[in-house]
């Protein structure tokens, strides 16, 4: 279901004003939190392109974060300007998305998801074992030349760009093809939608965005290791954010990203909660699947429907 254009523009405008205007008003601590929100929006919205609109639930997206981050660090260590490494990070993520997409997109539904867990784990195991990634001890960015504010703007612009890209794809024939693939892949193929091509394309676009975000992640944290960027838990939260927010909607992943970043900040602040974050993640996932598979967006729509049903009754009485 497509939201009216004006409503989409309004919330996009609010999001843009909030993210871009914040450095003028907020302190460094708040900006750090907002950086995390922007990072989460990129991951969730980009994943939603393939996992939501095309319905191909991938549980291996940390591979793209990792590839982007390692590309940036390795090239920066070779003397590149970190900003110039971002297109390369995106390009390598795209290349990898095609390499793993070609075989795995022959699989359907849950089989695809399981294969992506396998891909993600294989990548992590290999990255911890080979030399050039620094093994499990990780790599450090060359020091100097780091400016948090410019990195913040980079991530904020990338987040807005991601939402805009997803918006345009959603309102394009490409988006219709993805919708058709999600709803009934056989019917879509029968109508001439080349499903593998569209899945590969959606995978590539989202991989590019996530890869670039991985590069910015490496620049911001200055240190990466296979345990941080290829972690299964990262893949996990990338999947959870759009699902909890509202899968296959524009605003859902953004809502999910904001909710999760907020949760994360709360979790890090309190030791009791930090030990039970998997309860919260797992419980949320189970609750969404059992009660409202369309997440927060579905819940909202249910509320709206309930209110519009009550109003005529109130008028009669």
């Amino acid at each position, binding site marked *: 279901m497509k939201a009216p254009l004006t409503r989409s523009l309004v919330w996009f405008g609010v999001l843009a004003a909030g993210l871009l205007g914040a450095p003028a008003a907020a302190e460094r601590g708040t900006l750090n939190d907002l950086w995390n929100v922007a990072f989460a929006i990129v991951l969730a919205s980009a994943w939603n392109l393939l996992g939501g609109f095309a319905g191909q639930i991938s549980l291996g997206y940390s591979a793209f974060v990792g590839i982007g981050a390692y590309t940036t660090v390795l090239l920066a260590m070779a003397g590149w300007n970190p900003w110039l490494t971002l297109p390369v990070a995106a390009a390598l993520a795209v290349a990898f998305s095609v390499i793993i997409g070609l075989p795995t997109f022959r699989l359907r539904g*849950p089989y695809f998801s399981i294969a992506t867990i396998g891909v993600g784990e294989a990548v992590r195991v290999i990255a911890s074992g080979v030399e050039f990634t620094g093994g499990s001890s990780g790599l450090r960015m060359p020091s100097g030349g780091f400016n948090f504010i410019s990195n913040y703007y980079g991530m904020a612009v990338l987040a807005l760009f991601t939402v805009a890209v997803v918006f345009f794809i959603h309102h394009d024939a490409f988006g219709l093809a993805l919708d058709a693939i999600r709803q009934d892949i056989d019917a879509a193929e029968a109508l001439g939608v080349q499903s593998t091509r569209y899945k590969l394309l959606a995978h590539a676009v989202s991989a590019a965005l996530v890869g670039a975000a991985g590069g910015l992640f490496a620049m911001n944290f200055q240190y990466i290791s296979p345990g941080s960027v290829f972690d299964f838990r990262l893949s996990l939260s990338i999947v959870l954010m759009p699902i909890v927010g509202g899968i296959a909607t524009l605003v859902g992943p953004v809502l999910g990203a904001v909710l999760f970043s907020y949760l994360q900040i709360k979790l890090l602040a309190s030791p009791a909660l930090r030990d039970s974050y998997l309860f919260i993640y797992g419980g949320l996932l*189970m609750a969404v699947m059992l009660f409202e598979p369309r997440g927060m967006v579905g819940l909202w729509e249910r509320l709206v429907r309930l209110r519009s049903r009550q109003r005529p009754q109130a008028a009669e009485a």
Partner: protein
Amino acid sequence: MEKLAGVLLSSLFAAGLYATMSYGLAVIYGVMRIINLAHAGLMMLAAYVTLSLNTWLGLDPFLSLLVVAPLFFGIGVVLDLTIVRRLPRGGNAPSMQSLLLLFGLWLVLQNLAYLVWSGDTQSILTPYTMTSVHLLGESYGVPLLLVFGVSGLSLVGLDLLLRRTFLGKAIRAVTQNRDAARLSGVNADRISAVAFGLGTAFAAIAGTMMSTLYAFTPDFGRSFLLKAFCIIVLGGLGSFTGVAVGALVLALIENVFAAYTPIPTSFQDAISFSLLVLVLVAAPNGLPALFRGFSRKALAR
């Protein structure tokens, strides 16, 4: 030659455990068309329960199977009645909703283990942990042999249950065609609960046995879950002899790679995961179907 015999024997021993952990997935998949991602969490939980029984009561891990397996059968039945049953039934193909629901359950189980037993690496030591037996010029740990024996017994038990009892007949009937089974009077919902219990019990048997072989943490079991998927896909989803063959094939491949190639053992998991992807792509219906396809093509010629 002797090396080859050693590799074959190691593969056979490993295959016993692999088959046990895969049968649980296969039973649940067959009856309910659900891919149980919580399988890894249940294996991990069983390992911790075994640990507690061992430290509190001094119960031997293999003897504790008599407690753990029925306990987890009950847990499985309760999980089906309270959670899994609430999902809309997704026809003949497994639904994304069930996959993600059980994924959530896995996370909750991990957190539960973390809160109860902390995140430290645990292992179970028994008087025979360090003892070994010489066979064909290689030495094998006693726990490994016991695991192989128990695996064999439990698989024979499952086979007898499925082939010789009325309940087993009903389970097989629902696996083959749920609607037809219901038309002939099988209570498919009750069979689903039993199947989920059986699958959970087998996850627990595998988990308990693993606790005698490996150290474990709340995160334990993910790589074994992927191996189990690899096996049931190799063997053809829902075919029980196929699962045994699949387990043997995976164990052979792993051991051959370890023995004859310079690839370090830390990459062993990467091999099985790549194999998983390869098999899923080349033979989504399993090796038996692939062979049937080949012979059909050969006959057509």
